[in-house]
Each structure stands twice: as structure tokens, then as C-alpha cells.
């Protein structure tokens, strides 16, 4: 066992250094950083544009007193709409020729007016390029109703209902839906990182086969050790990348803060982050071992390129299967996704977001580690048998039929 690990370490160290110290690794690091940076900057700019420029704007031709009533109603109702805010209201002093004023307002490019409200609360009329049954018309009607009703109630001496409020940290109903979002985001993060990074393992043995180093390696170490060394080297390379990208994302978010943070996962943020790292590693090793095994059978770079597409499709299918663990994670499909080795890491990170039980993670990590080992053994056995021409693989299920 010691010599197996030693050989794996020597092979892994060579691969790690060869990859990290290459010029192309800088491009590898910068690519996603560029995407993260652009997403943050463009996201912020887009949000500001949406807030400032693209927000629906309705001109209200009314005197100050009447507009104050309408604006007050707008203020009261607006928080109920959350992010989908009510249209912005802009008061315009009435002109002598109302129709001409309306036309002029709607045509003014600098003002970006969507509709013009005339007639005050008594005979309101909305003119604009909006749908007759759409949100803008309904929202303006709602504001006007609120303004009129509040005026009438105030005159009748009626005070609006004051709703008492006691805040609790969590409730079953709220948390389940909120944590499902964290679960989905966790899965998406793991999936995206693995799709980006694990594919490299498909072509990992092509170099050794092309320059004949494989013979030197195979004479000094078991093929299992070669596979293991290569797999862990590429995991280490990917973790270097992930660390750099995460640091870049944190730095970016410091300067350009995001709107809202994700709801806290059930196991708490520190443990969740640790589990993300562990499950990412497990997911990488599982799929990586599979890709290494598949790629090692390819005779050329062209064959590897041909394999890339079906392999990506396979990853998407696994991701879709794992999404059954978001929401009803204890359902049959949710548990099946957690048990099926290749979807297990994705399913389990969703579980970590939704339930605080910890023993399942220990069991899942042990289960996934066992499958990593089994996949390496299987890949190595097939490689030795088919590529090194050593004879039938030691796993009897895969014994090829002899003609």
C-alpha cells in the first residue's frame, strides 16, 4: 500500500508541477476570473440601469395637492410589491392644451414616459403604450383606488389597521422554500465547477501514450497508482483554480456587493462551505476517475474530442437526476439520487442545505470514497487489459467474450 501511495504521489507531483508551471495555466486561471469579473460588473451595471433607466415611468398631470394624495398611496403600496416595484410617478404641471401636452410627454425621448395619467382622482385617464389588461394599468388603478379610499376613510375618521408584528428566526414553511434555493445554488456550483474542470481528465493519459512514457510508468508502478496519481494531481490543480476564482469572486463582491445573500443552509454556513469543498472533491474524483478510465481507452486526441460531448451529456443527466434531492429530499427519488454514486455528491450538498442531520454526510462521503476506489480499479483494470494488452480484466463482469 505504501509503495502504491508513494508511486501515486511521484506521478501526481509530476503532473501537478507540469500543469501549474505551464504558461497555459495562467490562461486557465484568468478565463473564469474574467467571466466572474464581467458578471459582477455587468450585473451591477445592468441592475443600476434597470433601476434608473428601465423602470416604468408614468407622468401624472395634476396639481400638487392631488399628486400628493396619489404619491402617498404609491408610497404605502410599493413595499408590498418587493422587487417588482410599482411604476415611478412623475408630476407634471397641467398645461393649457391637455391633449397636446400628453402627446408631447409621450414623445419626449429624454423623459422615457410609458404612460400619462390625467383627470386626477375624480376622472382618471391613462394614456400610454401599455396593455389594456397588463400590470401597469392595474397598478395605476390600484394606486388611485388606494388614494381615493384613504381620502374617504380619513374624512370619515377611520384609522387604518395597525398590524402588530413579532419576528421569529425561522418557521417550517419559510425555511423549506428558502433553503431549497440554497440547495439548488450549491448543486449548480458543484456541477459547473466539475463540468469546467473534470473534462481535462479525459485526455490525461494521451500524453503518456503518445510519448511512450506509459511503459516506464507501468514498469515501476501499478496502473492503479498511475491513475490515482493523475486523478489527485488534477484535483489539486482544480482546487488551485477554485481557490483563485473564489478569492477573485470575494474581492469582486467586496467592491461590487450583490443585492441579496442566499438563505442560510440547515447545517450553517461554515459546515456548508466545508461540505461544498468535500463534495466537490468527491464529485471531481468520481467523475474524474470515470473520465480517466474512458479517456485512457482512446487511442488519439481526436477520439478524446469525440468523447467530450457524450460525456458532457452524461454529466447533465446526472445533474438532472440529482435535482430530485432539492425540496422533498427524503422522497424515493431524493434518496436514490443520494445513493447513486455519481449523483451522490450533488444530492448530498442539496441535503446539507435543507436538513441539519450530519451522520448522512459521513456515510455518503465514505460511500463516495469507496466508489472512487472502485472506479479507479475498474479503469486501471480495463487499461491494463485493453491498452497494455495484459489480458482479460480482473473484474469478471467485464471479461470480454472470446470468439
Amino acid at each position, binding site marked *: 500500500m505504501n509503495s502504491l501511495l508513494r508511486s501515486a504521489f511521484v506521478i501526481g507531483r509530476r503532473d501537478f508541477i507540469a500543469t501549474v508551471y505551464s504558461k497555459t495555466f495562467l490562461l486557465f486561471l484568468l478565463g473564469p476570473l474574467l467571466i466572474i469579473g464581467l458578471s459582477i460588473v455587468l450585473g451591477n451595471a445592468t441592475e443600476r440601469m434597470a433601476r434608473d433607466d428601465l423602470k416604468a415611468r408614468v407622468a401624472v398631470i395634476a396639481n400638487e395637492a392631488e399628486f400628493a394624495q396619489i404619491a402617498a398611496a404609491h408610497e404605502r403600496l410599493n413595499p408590498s410589491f418587493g422587487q417588482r416595484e410599482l411604476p415611478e410617478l412623475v408630476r407634471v404641471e397641467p398645461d393649457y392644451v391637455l391633449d397636446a401636452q400628453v402627446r408631447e410627454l409621450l414623445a419626449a425621448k429624454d423623459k422615457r414616459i410609458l404612460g400619462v395619467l390625467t383627470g386626477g382622482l375624480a376622472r382618471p385617464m391613462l394614456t400610454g403604450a401599455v396593455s389594456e389588461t397588463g400590470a401597469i394599468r392595474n397598478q395605476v388603478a390600484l394606486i388611485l383606488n388606494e388614494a381615493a379610499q384613504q381620502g374617504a376613510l380619513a374624512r370619515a375618521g377611520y384609522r387604518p389597521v395597525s398590524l402588530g408584528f413579532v419576528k421569529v428566526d425561522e418557521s417550517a414553511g419559510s425555511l423549506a422554500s428558502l433553503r431549497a434555493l440554497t440547495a439548488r445554488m450549491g448543486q449548480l456550483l458543484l456541477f459547473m465547477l466539475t463540468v469546467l474542470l473534470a473534462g481535462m481528465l479525459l485526455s490525461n493519459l494521451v500524453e*503518456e501514450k503518445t*510519448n511512450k512514457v506509459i511503459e516506464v*510508468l507501468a514498469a515501476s508502478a501499478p496502473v492503479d497508482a498511475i491513475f490515482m496519481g493523475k486523478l489527485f494531481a488534477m484535483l489539486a490543480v482544480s482546487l488551485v483554480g477554485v481557490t483563485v476564482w473564489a478569492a477573485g469572486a470575494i474581492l469582486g463582491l467586496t467592491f461590487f456587493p450583490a443585492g441579496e445573500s442566499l438563505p442560510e443552509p440547515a447545517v450553517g454556513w461554515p459546515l456548508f462551505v466545508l461540505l461544498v469543498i468535500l463534495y466537490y472533491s468527491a464529485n471531481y474524483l468520481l467523475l474524474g476517475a470515470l473520465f480517466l478510465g474512458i479517456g485512457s481507452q482512446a487511442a488519439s486526441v481526436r477520439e478524446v474530442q469525440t468523447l467530450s460531448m457524450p460525456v458532457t451529456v452524461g454529466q447533465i443527466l446526472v445533474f438532472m437526476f440529482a435535482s430530485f434531492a432539492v425540496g422533498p429530499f427524503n422522497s424515493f427519488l431524493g434518496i436514490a439520487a443520494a445513493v447513486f454514486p455519481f449523483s451522490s455528491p450533488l444530492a448530498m450538498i442539496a441535503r446539507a442545505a435543507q436538513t441539519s442531520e450530519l451522520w448522512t454526510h459521513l456515510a455518503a462521503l465514505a460511500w463516495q470514497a469507496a466508489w472512487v476506489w472502485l472506479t479507479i480499479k475498474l479503469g486501471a483494470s480495463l487499461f491494463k487489459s485493453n491498452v497494455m494488452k*495484459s489480458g482479460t480484466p480482473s473484474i469478471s463482469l467485464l471479461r470480454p467474450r472470446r470468439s
Partner: protein
Amino acid sequence: MGGLAIEARGLFKAFDGKAAVDGIDLAVPEGTIYGVLGPNGAGKTTTLRMLLGIIDPDQGHRTLLGRERPLEAAHLVGYLPEERGLYPAMTARDAIAFMGALRGLPLEVGKKRAAGMLAENGLGDYVDKPIKSLSKGMAQTVQLFGTIIHRPKLIVLDEPFSGLDAINQGRLEHLIRAEAEAGATIIFSTHVIAHAERLCERIAIIAGGKVRFEGRVAEARDRLRPQVRLRTRLTDGPWRSALPADAANENGVFHFELPQSGIEPLLKALIEGGAGIEELSIERPGLHDAFVAIAGEAAAREMRSAQESELETA
């Protein structure tokens, strides 16, 4: 000393239903230089790969330095494969140290030894040069150093002279002798009989996946009787009855095996018969002659043509 570095019994390996190695037995004593001779496709490389544990035999078993599982002895073995392979971007020093590290030599020790070996062999300027910038011969030297950097007890060389020019072949022969003197067992495959004849104490001649001969070089030669070359003034006479019946006559020169009775009765008969001896020589057969006799003329022709094409390449 005294034990066997390699022992193989009934090794059998088939590819796509065709036997590449068909029941090979080998016994390589510790501390010897052992040659595996045979034409291309004879099964030499497959045999060596099975001995090293790179591939498993379909039948038979082998022990390497006393281990049933050859890879358990990997730290005591150095192997130069027929198809040389190095990482092109690695420096010469790192490549040698990496091969040592694969065999359990600490990387830093390997780097120091590698720099020393390269410098001693006139390659000091190339220590930190990437393999891709070296000539083919230099790269082969680097790989050879990587094979022995960890001071193995057993060195396995598959066609080590292939692709080397005459000077480098000489250097390699010197290195093989030096390693043997230092106590290592060396087994190498070759299709160049001259190398085996100069270097080996024992040989195995393989043809068609089978061992045709296994033993000392002298024993292989002794399988043939010494050859007599005789030129006489007269071409015929009663003395002719003293020559073997199958003696060949080429332009008045007779070639035949030395009779079992020895040279003296033959000489007496020739002199008394008045043959007029102009030239008489007795030639001890070379390993090539023994190879032809053992493996067959076709195998020998194949060996010769492979050797010629290699010399052209070098």
C-alpha cells in the same frame, strides 16, 4: 550471488488468439550479463514485459528477485523499454530524477546524482535543458541514466543498442560491463548478435515465441563442430576419402566440419595421400553460426536485415 535474479516457467502469452510467447523457461543467475536473442517478432519484448509485470502471462509463472509479483521488486529494478519515452518539457536532470523517484529514490538525491552522471559523461551543459532540445542520442542517454539512477540490482534493457551510433554503442557496452562489475544482473534483448557475443555470459535464443537455446555462449558455440577450410594443389586423389562425405568444394576450397577423430588423422591422410596442402585452417564457430544452426537460416536472415537497417538509421 548464486541465486536466480529471474526465473520463468512456461510463460505463455497470446494476442488476438495468436501465441506471441509460447511456453518460455528462463533462468537468469544473479550477477550475470544475460542476452535474449531473436529476430523481430520473436517474442523478446513480450517476454521482458511479462517478467517485469507490465503485462501478465496467460499461463506460467515468473519470479523477479525472488518476488512472485514483479512490481514488488520495482525499487530494485531498472528498465529501459524498446520504445523510449520521456516527457519532452522536463529537463534532463528532472527526467532522470523522476525515473529514480518512481523507483523509490528521493527526488533531491536523484537530482544530485543526475547532475553528476550527466557531467561525467560530457553532458554537463545539458543538465537543465529540456528533453525536447536534446538530440535523439542524448535523450537515449538520459533515459539510460534514468534506468540506473537508483542503482538497481537488476537492469532490464530492451534493444538498448537500437538507434545508437557506433560510438554510443561502445559507451553503452562499457556502461553495461561497469554495472555488472558493480554487482548488478543485466538482461538485455538484442537482434545484434555481436553485442551479445561480446557482453554476455549466458544467452537465450528465442524464435517463434519459444526458447531454442538457453545457456552459456560457449555452449551455444560448442553445439557446432569447428569448421575446416582446406585448399589443396590436387583436386582429387585417394586422400579424398579422408574428407567427410558432405565436404563442400567452392572453387577448390573445401569446407567441412572437423571430424570427431580430430585433425591429426586427417592431416596424416592428406600428407600420405599427396594432396599438396596449400592452406589449412580450423575456425571456431561464432555465435552467429550457432544462432543459424539453432534458430534457422530464416531467423538469422531477419536478424541481419534488421541489423543493417538499424545501422543505416544510426
